[in-house]
């Protein structure tokens, strides 16, 4: 937020307006709109293929959109003249498959982008990286390679790696989907602590219990549209739309 973006506190930090996206002739997002305020934790849930992952990939411009607008801190993401580095500094992302760099240790994974991309001094970054690894409970694993860590540990390194860029918004794309039930918990605890620190988090998740506990707002998507949304209490206990009810009925 050090830049001169037109964004001001009180406005949505991420604003998605009528976004449409197609892969070839298949339209996966059919006019999606939602606003996310700073510090909010938003969960996007829905059946497979409903466009959840595509939606959050559009927020940091990993995927492009055909129509509509997405702004992050007031800056249009799909402006061809956008400074992508500036955007990705603000928006961190964690993936389902961790996507760590296998030839780098946990510490090197966390340090790489701030040193190589932002050109920050190595010593300063190392201190930050060590404290981030400590924060995600990986003290002592600094010199382990990803191949030597469990799935849950790798995912927590990935979270620390994203945080090292000091983003304002974090995107989580089904980050526990590849983990076994025991390690899911350790990753969720980490995200919960992050949310408690005031980080704006947008999660695509199938962890309904987690969503209910942590989210400020839940969006349910199906077939490329937002079917229903609301705070967890009303959403889970008082769903109105038959599609939402059917979906919740299947998984709860």
């Amino acid at each position, binding site marked *: 937020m050090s830049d001169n973006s037109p964004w001001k506190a009180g406005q949505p930090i991420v604003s998605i307006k009528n976004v449409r996206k197609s892969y070839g002739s298949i339209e996966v997002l059919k006019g999606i709109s939602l606003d996310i305020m700073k510090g909010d934790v938003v969960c996007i849930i829905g059946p497979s293929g409903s466009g959840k992952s595509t939606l959050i990939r559009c927020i*940091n411009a*990993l995927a492009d959109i055909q129509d509509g607008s997405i702004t992050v801190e007031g800056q249009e993401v799909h402006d061809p003249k956008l400074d*992508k*580095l500036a955007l*990705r*500094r603000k928006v*961190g*992302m964690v*993936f389902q*498959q961790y*996507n*760590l*760099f*296998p*030839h780098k240790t946990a510490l090197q994974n966390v340090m*790489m*982008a701030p040193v*190589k*991309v*932002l050109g920050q001094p190595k010593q300063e970054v190392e201190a930050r990286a060590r404290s981030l690894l400590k924060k995600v409970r990986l003290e002592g694993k600094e010199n382990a*390679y*990803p*191949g*030597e860590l469990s799935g849950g540990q790798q995912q927590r390194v*990935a979270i620390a*790696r*994203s945080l090292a*860029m000091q983003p304002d918004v974090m995107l989580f794309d089904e980050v526990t989907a590849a983990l076994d039930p025991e390690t899911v918990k350790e990753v969720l605890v980490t995200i919960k602590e992050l949310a408690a620190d005031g980080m704006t988090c947008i999660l695509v998740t199938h962890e309904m219990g987690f969503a209910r506990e942590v989210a400020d707002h839940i969006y349910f998507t199906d077939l490329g549209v937002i079917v229903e949304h609301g705070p967890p209490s009303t959403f889970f206990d008082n769903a109105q739309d038959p599609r939402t009810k059917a979906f919740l009925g299947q998984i709860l």
Partner: protein
Amino acid sequence: MIETIQSFFRELAQTHPKWNFIFFYEPSQWARVVSGLAVTIELSVACVALSLIIGIVGAWAQGARSPFLRWLTQGYIQLFRNTPPMIQLLFFYFALGQFTPAIIGADGWTEEPVISNIGWAIVSLSFFAGAFNVEIFRAGIEAIPQTTKEACEALGMNRLQTYAYVVLPLALRVSLPALNNNLVNLVKTTTQAIAIAVPELLYQMVSIWNDYASAQNAAMTVLFATYILLVGALAFAMNRWERALYIPGFGGGR
């Protein structure tokens, strides 16, 4: 010590006329072997280095946005991979060699081409092996999952940073076994430079046995032994490199 060896081979040549290791007792012939070996090593090192650079640049160009660059790279690979290296050598030296300028020597009448036959051999063999290296590196680069590149993108890396810090270090590890094979082949192919009279080891050995027919068997034996040692050293170094680059949980085990 040296005298003992010399007198041993001198005697051997007398008792077994077909086994005249003349270069082991005649200093002038020994000098030819040494200079031939030096040229072979020079050729090998230069071609390995240049072909690696061509391989990296070519693999990059294959994925370039410009269709012209991609087309050019593909054309280069097809041409150099599908024609014999001997013909390429002759083409570079005799066909292209005509068009490069020559420098008139100090005496005013000798012409020295800007690119010597050793120079042409390095260029030609490097392009030959480079075509294979492009394909080897491409296979390595394609083995890196799209999702890993996406993680780089999400961390704000541009294409160059993604390649320099993540894709190439990983692709190299995937490529090494195939690269090992191709470089071994390259070192052996340097003997074909004899066709354009590059005074490398084979050229010197053939010259020796043309001068001394009795040295033919001996020269061939030494050729075999030298190449086994030379290629063995390269393969050993490559294997050591492969092991040094080993990372837990990625690729084959130790």
